């Protein structure tokens, strides 16, 4: 799965949880400042991403995922490790 594939699938999750149009879910966007996504929605996004990508995204890692690009990179790395 390329980073672009991960981004596309991840954008779908962000839309499902937070109703943010997938076309504007781009790597540089910040979850809190650009999308006003709160910590509980981040948990929902993380658990949906865990199901979709077969990776583990613990709460301890969530606070470091500031941007969409951070999340995509985390998933890509976790996926390779798994």
């Amino acid at each position, binding site marked *: 799965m390329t980073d672009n594939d991960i981004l596309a699938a991840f954008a779908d999750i962000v839309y499902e949880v937070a109703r943010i149009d997938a076309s504007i879910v781009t790597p540089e966007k910040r979850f809190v400042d650009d999308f006003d996504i*709160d910590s509980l929605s981040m948990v929902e996004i993380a658990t949906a991403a865990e199901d979709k990508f077969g990776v583990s995204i613990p*709460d301890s890692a969530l606070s470091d995922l500031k941007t969409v690009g951070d999340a995509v990179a985390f998933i890509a790395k976790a996926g390779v490790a798994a």
Partner: protein
Amino acid sequence: MTTDHPRVLALGEYRPSRSVPNAELPAELEPDDAWIRERTGIAALRIAGDDETVVSMAGAASAKALATAGVDPADVDLVILASCTMPTQVPGGAARVARLAGAVTAGAFDINAACAGFCYGLSLAADAVRSGSARHVVVVGAEKLSDWTDWTDRRTAILFADGAGAAVVGGAAKPGIGPVIWGSDGRMAELIEIPLGGKLQMDGQAVFRWATTALADVARRACTAAGIPTEALAAVVPHQANLRIITALARQIGAANAVVADDIVDAGNTSSASVPLALSRLIADGRVRSGDPVLLLGFGAGLTWAGQVIEVP
């Protein structure tokens, strides 16, 4: 006609008279109504006064449930108080609740399964009626969480509230309480706790993750055990922890035709009282009717959980 099938005969509730809207929470919490509503669904908390105790609220709710059921308190053989906020350890509260409800010499004991307590108690009540140990059982969830709230912690103080909800369980020709699905996981005991000498603490994010990933399976199993497809449920009554947990659970279960209890909006999170309070509200508002199958699902500190399908009295 046999009458040994346990059934909920009536509910009773006690809501503290004081309602505290988000904006009127203590100033040091910097309460922001829109922020609180968006994250929790809560608009106001019911907070008990000095004269409203766990025991007094439980007694009042129990007496109302008995009156509505038309059951003579003298015919109650057991009173179960589910609470995790009793101010003292000894004596337990159940005997005083029994006295207040008029069931003066009924068997009485307390259980603490936190927010799952009412559903645990309801299962014990059903077993007692089924086995013949009791003709009628009062099970009541009652909490005064405001006594244990850290009023300087805006992550938790905006959530917790007070109240009591009771059910009378008795024998009927037709079964009305489905098998319980219950469990616990002490590996996550520290996620919600009142440390010795301290106030209530909660890792909200971790609890949210658990509640939105682990509990749908418990709910589905309770429906399967009762032989009720989730789409046939008339209502889903989860513990009123957070409206976002409740909404996520209802969506995951696929209870497409069910009313989803939302008593939390003006009641707050009342732990063991929340399930009977929310169901009582649905009945009072005419959102469910007698005989409707509804799913009850308690979950919370321990961690503990318990769920069952019952028929609305």
